[in-house]
């Protein structure tokens, strides 16, 4: 609307967690594919613990859990739900999202698993346009995430209504219905 500015982002620098918070270089721990969970021993002694190698992959993650569930001291959840953010350069040549046209399709909502968010022009935290990928979903304990963001400097926080637009797209990805007999295309 003319004369009004709807900012996309704000800066956050404390241990509050809100939906839309973007945490850079957040660790993602990936268990080995062949982990035999049933054989894991737990005798209580450090010498006899099973040793399991996990892959550690840093990623830029955005908080998808609802803000009301993350209020400090009144958390309704034990884990924060997170999805990764990718830039155009993160995609391999030939892939749809390696091309501007692919980003335009994603921006229009043609790719259910991807949601584009704007570039951030705030001086302290400039960022290029990113796409949130709902096909990868991670979770970390709330306390872990609070400590992590508290240790870091500033981070960007997606503001309403862009935040709600993201959560709506996230919900839509998980409520897709494949019709067994679809309506024929109109020509």
């Amino acid at each position, binding site marked *: 609307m003319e004369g009004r500015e709807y900012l996309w982002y704000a800066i956050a620098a404390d241990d509050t967690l809100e939906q839309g918070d973007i945490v850079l270089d957040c660790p993602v721990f990936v268990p080995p594919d062949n982990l035999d969970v049933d054989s894991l021993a737990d005798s209580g002694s450090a010498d006899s613990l099973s040793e*399991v190698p996990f*892959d550690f992959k840093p990623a830029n993650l955005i908080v998808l859990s609802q803000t009301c569930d993350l209020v400090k001291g009144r958390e309704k959840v034990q884990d924060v739900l997170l999805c990764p953010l990718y830039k155009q350069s993160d995609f391999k040549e030939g892939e749809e999202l390696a091309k501007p046209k692919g980003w335009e399709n994603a921006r229009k909502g043609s790719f259910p698993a*991807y949601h584009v968010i704007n570039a951030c022009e705030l001086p302290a935290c400039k960022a290029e346009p990113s796409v949130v990928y709902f096909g990868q979903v991670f979770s970390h304990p709330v306390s872990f995430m609070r400590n992590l963001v508290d240790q870091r400097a500033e981070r960007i926080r997606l503001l309403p209504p862009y935040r709600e637009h993201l959560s709506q797209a996230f919900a839509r990805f998980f409520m897709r219905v494949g019709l067994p007999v679809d309506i024929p295309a109109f020509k």
Partner: protein
Amino acid sequence: MTTITMDASFGTALQVQSTPRLDGLLSYVVDAVAHEFDSACEGAATKTTSRGLTDDEAVQRENLAGISFSSFFGAPELESLSTTSVSQGIQEPCETEKAMLALIEPAPVNVSQEFDEDSEMLDWDMVSKVKEREKKTVLVTLRYAGRLKPPPDPDPWT
């Protein structure tokens, strides 16, 4: 002949009401039905008395006023209201029946104050926390495997 059958759950809802309120509700409905019957008959293309009712309709009005509402508790059933005097010649609820049905509506559980939508919502603070599952302790060695990358997606339209 038309039979109006009240849903059994409606009777249950009424039973939740406190007795004083229920008495008041019943007397309101009985009085209001007679009044609404009069209103429903306005404009009916029938012979009318000086009070606006046909003789048959006047008899029906008396019958309605005497309906026992104790039948609402359980599986209530209102016997038909003869529609011959006011019917338009089709088998559908007459104005009388419509007026009665409009008056008889499920009452909210909380009748002493205005209906509060928020009170119907689940209070999340009261939801108990999820019980923690059994934990096992393992020794995890972390190995850096590069930044997380998007997996190949040949058909992002789906």
